[in-house]
């Protein structure tokens, strides 16, 4: 139960002036149930990468194994794969098209060939999962606010009951409140359903708070792969490629340089606060 990439490379428009190597020999494996963040600055190949995972883009070379099976094998059922590996694109609200929200969310399950009642049941469940208010179910998706549209669009993918959920910059263009709400919702989803979640972002803060593993992409190559703690230890290298560790990492490193016995590995504000408190306890203990 996993997705594995083996030496995947991808070249855009080969043989023209627009030729561009988007991915270079990328390999990794994601186990079922993991919460993974993929980060990288604009143009690092992260969006291209995730489009490989459900077969929307075919690798120029390399293999992709879903549950041990090569998805490029002849006769492999791509539509079934897309139902299991749900991909939510950046600004997914731009793909809404139906007369009302519920019908739009039904689009996915309907394509899977489910009967009408089951489509609707799945759609309602999905909308509930993303915290979409029931009173808007019969409203046109074009009348909703930005945050609600996005929830509806994410529900549109969840309604297919995927085992893996990939979100490409799910918080782009949302205000801080909307951003936290969506990410909290995603985290809840991961906890309650146990589905694999892959979160693509360029915001380290967002990613650090939620994921258990980070894959850093740079110029189409995998640069780091590990727990947030391991990855943020390379904060100086990250800076060089246009990324930054969460601000707490910097604070902790600064404190340590000033001589406070704190561990610089804290990646979230909570952890950092604990570390600083420990340091105080240590001091008061000393003075007594």
């Amino acid at each position, binding site marked *: 139960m996993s997705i594995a990439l083996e030496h995947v490379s991808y070249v855009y*428009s080969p*043989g*023209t*002036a627009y030729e561009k190597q988007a991915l270079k020999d990328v390999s990794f494996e994601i186990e079922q149930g993991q919460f993974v963040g993929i980060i990288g600055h604009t143009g690092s190949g992260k969006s291209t990468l995730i*489009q490989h995972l*459900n077969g*929307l883009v075919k690798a120029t070379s390399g293999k992709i194994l879903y549950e041990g099976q090569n998805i490029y094998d002849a006769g492999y059922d791509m*539509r079934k794969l*897309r*139902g299991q590996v*749900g*991909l*939510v*694109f950046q600004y*997914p609200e*731009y*793909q*809404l*098209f139906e007369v009302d929200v519920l019908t739009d969310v039904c*689009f*996915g399950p309907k*394509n*899977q060939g489910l009967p009408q009642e089951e489509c609707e049941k799945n759609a309602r469940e999905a909308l509930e999962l993303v915290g979409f208010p029931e009173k808007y179910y019969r409203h046109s998706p*074009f009348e909703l606010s930005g945050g609600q549209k996005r929830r509806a669009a994410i529900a*549109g*993918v969840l309604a*297919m009951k995927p085992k893996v959920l990939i979100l490409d910059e799910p918080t782009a263009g949302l205000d801080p409140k909307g951003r936290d709400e969506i990410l909290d919702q995603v985290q809840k989803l991961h906890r309650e359903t146990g589905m694999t979640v892959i979160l693509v972002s360029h915001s380290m803060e967002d990613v650090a708070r939620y994921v258990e593993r980070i894959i850093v992409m740079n110029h189409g190559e995998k640069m780091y792969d590990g727990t947030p703690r391991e990855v943020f230890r390379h904060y100086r290298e990250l800076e060089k490629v246009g990324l930054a560790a969460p601000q707490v990492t910097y604070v902790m490193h600064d404190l340590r340089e000033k001589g406070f016995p704190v561990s610089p590995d804290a990646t979230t504000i909570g952890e950092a606060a604990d570390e600083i408190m420990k340091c105080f306890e240590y001091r008061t203990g000393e003075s007594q």
Partner: protein
Amino acid sequence: MIRDITIGQYYPAESRIHRLDPRVKIVCTLLFLISLFIQNSFLGYVIATVFLGAVIRLSNVPLKYIVKGMKPVVILLLFTVVMNLFLTQGGETLAHFWIFTISENGLRTSVFMAVRLIYLVTGSSIMTFTTSPNGLTDGLEKLLHPLNRINVPVHEVAMMMSIALRFIPIILEETDKIMKAQMARGADFESGNIIQRAKAMIPILVPLFVSAFRRANDLAMAMEARCYHGGDGRTKMKPLRYRGRDRIAYAVTLIYLVVIFIVGRYIPFKLWVF
């Protein structure tokens, strides 16, 4: 996939053709198109081939790229060829089966028609490949400027054209994105009969129109915010000016036109039926 549509697109490269004044390219393309229609002989097409080949060579646009741009006209091309092949009569009969007859004239017309069509598309694509959309509309605006006197809103038409051209790649990219997003939700665009396929387009077309209107609205706002008020009193940052190379290009094209006219009309030469 859909990104492969290259017709009407600009191909950024460094070349002598790219550097020419857009007006030269527009006028010369027009002359080239005319040259295809004022003659219909084997030698004439040979000269046109040489001229077109030389221009392609000079333009540094890969031939593969140009050929790829022909894809959308293949069906039209086949249709023309088949129609002409079977429906044009005259001369000796070359082949006959059931109700179909291929005559000398039919073969001749269909082959010449196909070449003409291919050169027509290639010739105009060379212009768009080597001229940026802005250059193209600048050139057109300047060329059509005299029409201002009879109250044709030349500037506005040129501006609309340049916006339309500018939006082609954007809309294509948007289509690609929306298609992928719907495919990620299990949409299928490839199977089913014609009605099912047309229906499958709705999930693409609705978001596409919504986004096109949104973009048009944003653009209008941005233009107003920068005090755009039409063509009156508007000056250019880079006014078009003819240079030596432009005069040479005009001269070469005119010579080509004269040669193809004389050769095509007055030198009788036949290779088999052509």
